[in-house]
Each structure stands twice: as C-alpha cells, then as structure tokens.
C-alpha cells in the first residue's frame, strides 16, 4: 500500500537523477536527489512503499542504472506507466525495482490516491477510488529473473 506521486509523459533519466550527481553510485546518496529537477518536494514527502504513476515512455534517455536505483532507494515500491523506455525497463528488473505497464491505471489514478499492487497477478487496486485495474503480467523470461531476485543472482546461478 502506498500513496501515489503522479507525473506526466516522457519523464527522462536526467530529471530522475541529474548527471551532476552521477559521480557517486551509492544508492542513499542518489536517493537524496531523486526527481529534484521536476519535483523538488518529492524527496521530502516520499515515504517507504509509495508509488509513482506516470505517462507514457517513463525513463527515456540515458542508460544510467542510477535512475531505477535512486527511485528504489527513495523508498518507492513500484512505478506504473502505460509504457517504459526500453533501457529503463531492463534496468528496473535487473536491479529489482518493480514496474508495471497499465494504461488504464496510469490514466485513472490521481496524485495522492492510495494504491495497492499485487505483483503476482498484476492487479492494481485503487483503495481511494474503489477501482481495480489489470496490468500486463510479466513475460516468462522476466519472471525467471525476478524469481532469482534480479540479474545478479540469475547470473550467479548460471555462471
């Protein structure tokens, strides 16, 4: 269960974590600057378990894994959007940040709503509005990586 922070379309990795902060790769350090270029208040307000809901093409731009790492380290439990930029999509699973593609949820959920997500079924429940949305379930191959808790362990098992 988490409170929703809502953003528009094409949220890019330069606003998720600006390059000027990339001379470190420590998650807690990165988390301090998460989203600061579009929402300076985000880091002060976000609480463990909160959820980001955004428009299409979330995470476009650079390949920096610092982006999903910063979001996860800030306490966010899930990102929901109609589509994700492809590198961000890979990086999220590889680093253990759950993301879900769901157009309906992205449209209907509003900032401040309370939302609950079932990752097994892809079901998204909006308890504020009393609505339920269905996200695409994860492809089988990605489920395998998730089952290993990310790519690091997947490789460890397959080396």
């Amino acid at each position, binding site marked *: 269960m988490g409170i929703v922070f809502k953003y528009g379309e094409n949220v890019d990795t330069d606003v998720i974590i600006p390059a000027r902060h990339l*001379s470190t790769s420590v998650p807690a350090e990165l988390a301090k600057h998460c989203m600061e270029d579009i929402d300076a208040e985000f880091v002060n307000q976000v609480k463990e378990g909160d959820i980001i809901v955004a428009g299409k093409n979330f995470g476009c731009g650079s*390949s920096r*894994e*610092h982006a999903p790492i910063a979001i996860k380290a800030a306490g966010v439990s899930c990102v929901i959007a109609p589509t994700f930029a*492809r590198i961000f999509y890979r990086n999220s699973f*590889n680093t253990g940040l759950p993301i879900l593609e769901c157009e309906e949820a992205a449209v209907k959920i509003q900032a401040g709503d309370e939302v609950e997500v079932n990752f097994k079924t892809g079901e998204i429940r909006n308890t504020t509005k009393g609505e339920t949305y269905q996200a695409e379930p994860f492809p*089988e*191959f990605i489920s395998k990586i998730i089952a290993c808790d990310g790519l690091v362990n997947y490789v460890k098992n397959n080396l």
Partner: protein
Amino acid sequence: MGMTMTQKILAAHAGLKTVKAGQFIEAELDIVLANDITGPVAIKEFQKMGAESVFDKNKVVLVPDHFTPNKDIKAAEQCKMMREFAVDQKIENYFEVGEMGIEHALLPEKGIVVAGDAVIGADSHTCTYGALGAFATGIGSTDMAAGMARGKAWFKVPSAIKFELIGKPTKWVSGKDVILHIIGMIGVDGALYQSMEFMGPGLKNLSMDDRFTMANMAIEAGAKNGIFLVDDKTMEYMKEHKNKNKAFKKKMKVYEPDKDAVYVETYVIDLSKIRPTVAFPHLPENTRTIDDVGEIRIDQVVIGSCTNGRMEDMKVTAKILKGKKVAKNMRLIIFPGTQNIYLECVKNGYAEIFVKAGAVFSTPTCGPCLGGHMGILAAGERAVATTNRNFVGRMGHVESEIYLASPAVAAASAIAGKIFNPEDL
C-alpha cells in the same frame, strides 16, 4: 516469414535459424562496452555475481570519457577504479585520456566494431554503431556486468520500422537534420522497443559521418537500435579503420533484410526536401525547420559530442567560422570526438580558425553534453548544441534551455548571436 536485418544478426548470434518479433533469446556478444559512469557500477555488480575474470579480455571495452579529464575527486575515484580493473583483467581496449575519445566516436575509428557484430554498451548511444551494419544497443550496468561475465545478453527480438531514403540532401542539410526531422515526425517514443532500419537509393548520398549521427539518435525515438544497410561507403570506411592490434582479429559479416521481411511501418524520406532542422526545449521531438524558428537569442553554442564531433562536423564548422568572429558575449565551445580528430584539426588549420574566431577548442570529453563540466548553463541561459538531448537540466540549471541543431546551424548561430540559417550567411 522473412527477417529484418536486426533479426538476422540476432538469430545468428543466438545460434538460431530464425527468430521472430517478441521472442526472448540469449545472444553471444562481440563487444561489451562501458564508460566511467556506468563502468564502476558494472564492476561492483560483476564482483557480486562471483565472476573472477571477464569472458574475453579482447571483447570488453572501457572508455573513461564522461567526467574526464577528471572533473573532481569523486570522478577521479571512479576512473581509478575502472583503470585498476582494466589493468587487473588485462583489458586491451582501455583508453586513457591521452588516447581516448568519446566512446561512440572512438570505437568505429579504431575498428573495434564492424558490420555484423552484436554489441551492448552501458551507454544509451551505443546504437551509433548501427551505421556500420552492426546490431548495437544500450543497456544498464547490471546487464553490462552479466555481459562481461558470460559474453551473453538476453533480448526480446524487436519488430522494425523501415526508412526508405530517396533523393539527395541540399548543401547545408546533414544527417543531423534528417534524424531530427524523423524524430519530429514519429516522436520520442515513435520507435519504442523497435529497430529503425535505414535503406534505399538515397543512402549513397549520406556520408558515414551522417549515418553515425543518425544511428546515434535512434534512441531519441525510443528505438532499441538503428541500423543501416552496408554499402560501398561502409566497406571503404571499415577498410580505412581496420584495427591494428593483431591479437584482436575482427571479421565483418554483411547481413541484409529478407525480401519478405516484415516491417511494422515504412516511411519514405525524401532527403532533398529536408530543411535545416532545430529541436526546441525540452524534447528532441519538438522540431521546427529553420524557416519557422523566429528570433531566438542565445548565450552559448556547443559543437561536438558523440552525435556531431566527427571530422565532417569539424570541417563544416571551420568552413563557416573561417575569417569570422563569434558574436559579442557569446561562448562557443568546440569539443571533437577523439584525439585523432583533434590532431587532424590541428594539422589542417581548423584549430587555428576556431581559436581565431573566439571559440574554446577542448580536448575530447563528454563534458558539456551531459552537464558534467566544461560549459554548464546558468538559469535563464540558452544554448544551441549539436548534441542529442535537450531535456530539462541536461546542460546545467533547470531553467536553462537547449536547442538541438546541426554543426552548420550551430556555427552560423554562434556568429549571429541567435539561431541562424547557414544559407543566409
């Protein structure tokens, strides 16, 4: 069912006869690349994976280019870590500042990537090598770590959009204008999860440098990769840029799409109709032709990067700047792609033209392109840049603005003090 060029390369690297869009595969990799930002993260993940040595010391490439020459202590620490890893793992293709270049300008120049290769790089503009007829795509540090450990990566086979090029660009129109035009047309997610495949009779009218610029920005349309059909120009380029290291033998292979290859969409692009194009803040898709730009005063011009820091870019810049001066209170920063290009600029007099015009001529570095160092913007400042991204805060303050353009438009703008059409000089 026929396969696209990308699908053929992926099938070959996965040891499969055929693949189809949407299929998950594991492909063997020819090159695995990282830089000083993504490399250190990848090295840590590599160690966590329990890997001891890289799958092939000739196939891992490490280029410190983003915050180099080291911009601060933290950057120095990151570069040091990468350097120690390179020495420890005996990685041949590690390039120290004096021999480096911006990775995507450097690798083709050194003959490290050739046609038919499958390449992953922990940098989104890895797609640049598609200009050579290779499959190349950006990934994150964890994928990079897995690639270094196993020489393999997982992919979802992409569907593709075909760009049939016809006609010949006019004098001041370059690959940058063509790709900005295309991104303006299809949007920043117009090719999401897909390949952009470029072919057609107009191809012969685009130089290799034009093609590198276009493939470079495929990611700016959300694409997994951009790829060009191999022709005489590609072959000539690869011959000229053969890798000199004997231990590092490269074999190129030319792939062509099947006659019945399935493309989700086909666009015919008439190169002769394309005008010099500018992308307005804050997305590469906000394009306007130079005729619709209006009066936009600027404070800084940046010419260079992995998009437009190659020899032709330097040449057109020198041509426009020769005997001229940049506008009063204008900062012009020129940063070539590699040490080789830098040296050529010195030898053939471009460096002198740049400095006499009042420009800063920098060592190769990503520096200003990502707002790292060497040309950060203050609040309210506007820049014309030949780079690839004009996102909020990309080059500095969140209230600064970036206009993306070709080197010709950028150089003309530096002289005029506002966004300017090179045709009107």
